[in-house]
C-alpha cells in the first residue's frame, strides 16, 4: 500500500473491519449488512463520481444515482463471490469498475440514439415546415417506400408519439426512429433535386 505508514495502517484496519463485516453478511447478519452498506455506499458514490468526472462528456449526471444503486445491487447479488481469505476493497472496486464500464458502454449507445432523436429529427422537422406551399406534400410522400411513408405520416402528420407508432405498427421504437430519419433524408434529397 502506498502513502505514509500511519495511513497504510488505517487503511489496513479499515480493510480488516470491512472484511469481517462482509463475512458476517455472508452468514446473513442484518446489522452487519446495514453497517457495511452505509460505508460501501459512500465509497461507491465517490468512485462513481470520479469516474463520471473522467468521462464527463459521455454521461448525464442524473444517472449517477442509478449507477450507484446498480453497483450496490451487484454487490448484493454477487456477495457469494467474495472470498473471506482475500481483501474486501479490491472486490468492491473490481465490481464497481465493471459496472461503470458497462454503464458507459450502454450510455454511449444511448447517447447515439439521443443525437438521432434530438438533433437530426428536429432539424429535419424544421426543414419540412419551411417547405414552400407550392410543393405537393402528398406527392412527395408517395415517392417514399411504403414503410417509411406510413410511419412518417403517423408521427409527423397524425402526431402520434414514437411509442404509439411502435405499438401500432409492431416495430421497435428504435426501428421507428431510424425509419423516420431515413424517410426525412430521402425527402430532403428529393427536394434538393427538384
Amino acid at each position, binding site marked *: 500500500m502506498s502513502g505514509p505508514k500511519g495511513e497504510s495502517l488505517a487503511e489496513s484496519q479499515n480493510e480488516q473491519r470491512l472484511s469481517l463485516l462482509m463475512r458476517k*453478511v*455472508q*452468514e*446473513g447478519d*442484518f446489522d452487519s*449488512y*446495514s453497517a457495511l*452498506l*452505509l460505508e460501501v*455506499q459512500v465509497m461507491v458514490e465517490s468512485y462513481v463520481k470520479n469516474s463520471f468526472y473522467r468521462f464527463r462528456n459521455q454521461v448525464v449526471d442524473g444517472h449517477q*444515482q442509478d449507477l*450507484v*444503486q446498480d453497483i*450496490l*445491487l*451487484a454487490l*448484493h*447479488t*454477487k*456477495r*457469494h*463471490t*467474495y*472470498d*473471506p481469505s*482475500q*481483501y474486501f*476493497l*479490491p*472486490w*468492491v*472496486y*473490481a*465490481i464497481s*469498475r*465493471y459496472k461503470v464500464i*458497462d454503464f458507459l458502454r450502454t450510455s454511449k449507445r444511448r447517447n447515439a440514439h439521443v443525437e438521432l432523436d434530438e438533433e437530426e429529427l428536429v432539424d429535419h422537422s424544421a426543414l419540412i415546415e419551411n417547405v414552400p406551399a407550392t410543393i405537393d406534400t402528398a406527392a412527395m410522400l408517395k415517392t417514399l417506400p411504403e414503410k417509411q411513408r406510413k410511419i412518417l405520416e403517423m408521427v409527423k402528420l397524425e402526431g402520434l408519439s414514437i411509442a404509439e407508432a411502435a405499438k401500432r405498427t409492431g416495430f421497435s421504437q428504435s426501428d421507428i426512429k431510424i425509419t423516420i430519419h431515413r424517410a426525412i433524408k430521402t425527402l430532403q434529397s428529393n427536394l434538393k433535386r427538384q
Partner: protein
Amino acid sequence: MKNEKFLDQLINDLQPVKTFAPPIQTALYWFVIAVLIIATLDFFMMPLRADLAQKLSEFSFILQWIFLLLISVLAAMAVSWIGRPGRPGQKLLINASFLLMGVFSSIFAARGLQMGAHLGCEFGGVRCMAAIIMLSILPAAFFFWQSRRAASVYPGLSGSLIGLASGTIGATALALSCDDDKPFHLLEWHLVFPLLLLCVMGFLAGRKVLRW
C-alpha cells in the same frame, strides 16, 4: 428510488450464502469433467489411430499432450480467477495461457519450417478442425453454465479462455485418432484454426452469457 428505501430492500432481502469454492477447485473440477466428456465422445465417435501404441512410447507425443493439457488447466484457472472480482493473479494467468499457446504453436511452426513443409488447405485438415470444435462444444457449454454463477469482470475474455480450455482438450483427444503428424497439419488444423475459432465463438458467447 430513494437510496434509503433501496438499502432497506437490500437488507430485507439478505439471506446467508454459501461462498464460492476456491477457484483452483472450480477449475480442476471442470477440467476433470471436461476430460471425461471429451474422452467418452472421442471413444464413441472416432476410431483410434493404428499406431497409437507406438506413439504412446514417444516422448514428443507425450510432451505434446502435457503441453496441451497444461494450457487447458491454465485457461480454466484464468476463467475461475476472473470470475472472482479483485482476486490477484488474474492477469498473470490470462497472459500465461495465451503465451504458452503461442510458444507451443511456434514450436510446431519451427519444426515445420525445418522440415521444409508448406501451409495448405486440405480436406482432412478441415475434418480435424470440425472434430475438435464438435468435441469441445459440450465441455465449453458446461463451463459457461458453471461460470454463470461467478462474476466475470471480463465476460468476453472469459468466453475466449473457455474456448481455449475446451479446444486444447479436444486437440489432445484428436491426437489419439488423427495419424497425420506433419507439423503444419498439427499447427493449422489441430491448433491455430480450431482454437482461434473457438476463442472467437467463446468471446461472442461470453459477452452475452456471462454479462451480469
